[in-house]
């Protein structure tokens, strides 16, 4: 049983499933094999019943091909606006303050904007003109206490599935923002303290600026990734970066799990990079005390291009 589970774990890692999924699958198999043993099946019988770990891992990976992130339920939300999109591409420009927002896909050819919450939605500027969708929070002069956190809005913006998002600009102070299943050519996100979740996205150019917001990116494909953070932490899980990955951080840490990229360039004061199954082709580190620690099972060659640091280290093992 132990051997089977070990082999299975290895095969699942080869298929690049996420750690969370691997743990679930292993637990399920542990239970099933244990039940088989309790019923008095011999090792041979169990082997015949369960087959090759390799096969089950391949099937499970196939399963994942077209799996997308579960979209937010909009049943309880108010449908506020819909815009018919005539072209095959569009751009998006969103400016928010503290409203939470989810971007996801709609099956129709319309942009659909839903909301929930008590704040006055009519004060927001919203439009779709010349192929550009805009949503802006009302301008506030000085302090305005009428927008307590309690009656904040939450938006769900659905973009048509078959329309290419050429550019998506998202600027916010403290909104938590979620991006699900999107395909974006140029994604620019600026957040002060809002957290960011990006799941199942395909992005060509991704520029992310965060002051203290945390960012989690999972199951996504990115071509060029430019990350700049002050004290927020960033986590990447199961992300393929086919081009270069540049990270600028003051004290925020970067955690990488199952990530590949070409050149990895890290500029840090005290922020660290912790990589598990992180396979960059080249690494450059410029830091005061920030370290780069990489722990990989597969020993692939990683070139250290340049290292200028006071007390930081690059550890690859």
């Amino acid at each position, binding site marked *: 049983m132990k051997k089977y589970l070990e082999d299975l774990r290895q095969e699942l890692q080869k298929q690049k499933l996420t750690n969370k999924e691997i743990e679930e699958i292993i637990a*399920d198999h542990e*239970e*099933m094999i244990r039940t088989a043993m309790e019923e008095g099946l011999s090792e041979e019988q169990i082997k015949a*019943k369960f*087959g*090759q770990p390799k096969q089950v891992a391949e099937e499970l990976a196939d*399963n994942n091909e077209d799996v997308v992130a579960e979209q937010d339920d909009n049943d309880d939300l108010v449908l506020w606006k819909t815009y018919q999109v005539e072209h095959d591409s569009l751009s998006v420009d969103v400016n928010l303050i503290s409203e939470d927002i989810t971007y996801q896909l709609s099956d129709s050819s319309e942009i659909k904007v839903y909301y929930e919450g008590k704040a006055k939605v009519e004060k927001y500027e919203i439009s779709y003109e010349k192929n550009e969708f805009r949503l802006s929070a009302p301008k506030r002069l000085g302090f305005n206490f009428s927008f307590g956190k309690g009656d904040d809005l939450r938006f769900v913006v659905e973009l048509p599935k078959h329309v290419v998002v050429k550019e998506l600009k998202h600027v916010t102070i403290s909104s938590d923002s979620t991006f699900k299943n999107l395909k974006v050519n140029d994604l620019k996100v600026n957040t002060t303290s809002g957290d960011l979740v990006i799941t199942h996205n395909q992005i060509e150019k991704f520029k992310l600026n965060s002051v203290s917001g945390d960012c989690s990116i999972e199951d996504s494909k990115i071509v060029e990734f430019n990350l700049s953070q002050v004290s927020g932490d960033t986590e990447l899980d199961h992300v393929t970066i086919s081009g270069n990955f540049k990270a600028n951080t003051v004290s925020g840490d970067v955690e990488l799990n199952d990530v590949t990229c070409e050149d990895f360039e890290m500029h840090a004061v005290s922020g660290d990079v912790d990589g598990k199954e992180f396979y960059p082709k080249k690494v450059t580190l410029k830091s005061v005390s920030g370290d780069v620690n990489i722990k990989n099972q597969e020993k692939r060659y990683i070139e250290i291009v340049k290292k200028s640091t006071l007390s930081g280290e690059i550890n690859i093992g």
Partner: protein
Amino acid sequence: MNAQFKRGIIELCVLSVLVEKDMYGYLIINQLSDFIDVNENTIYPILRRLTKEDYFETYLEESNEGAPRKYYKMTEKGFIYYLRLREEWDAFIGGVYQIINQGGKKNEEIFRRFKTRITETKANK
């Protein structure tokens, strides 16, 4: 058998056993492999995919042997999907039987007819 085709059929089988009652993984595998030549590495991925698509929910329940088991329970969405698949399957397999059984089921009879036809074609050339 074509893998894609087999997968579709197993999917229907998994749905069919779970329409009756909630079951844990190993029991589902047993129920299916008692009747058809199929093993865990085909059934489990299907079970997992259908769960991901919300056709099943899971819950843990203690077993007599001690450790808890994960039970799969069909959702309403799963039941609707099952009905649709079942209908498609009945229509399809009904059609297939019509085609393959035209003129009787007996092998000797089929061979005899085929033989006469082949000889006829050869003679015509």
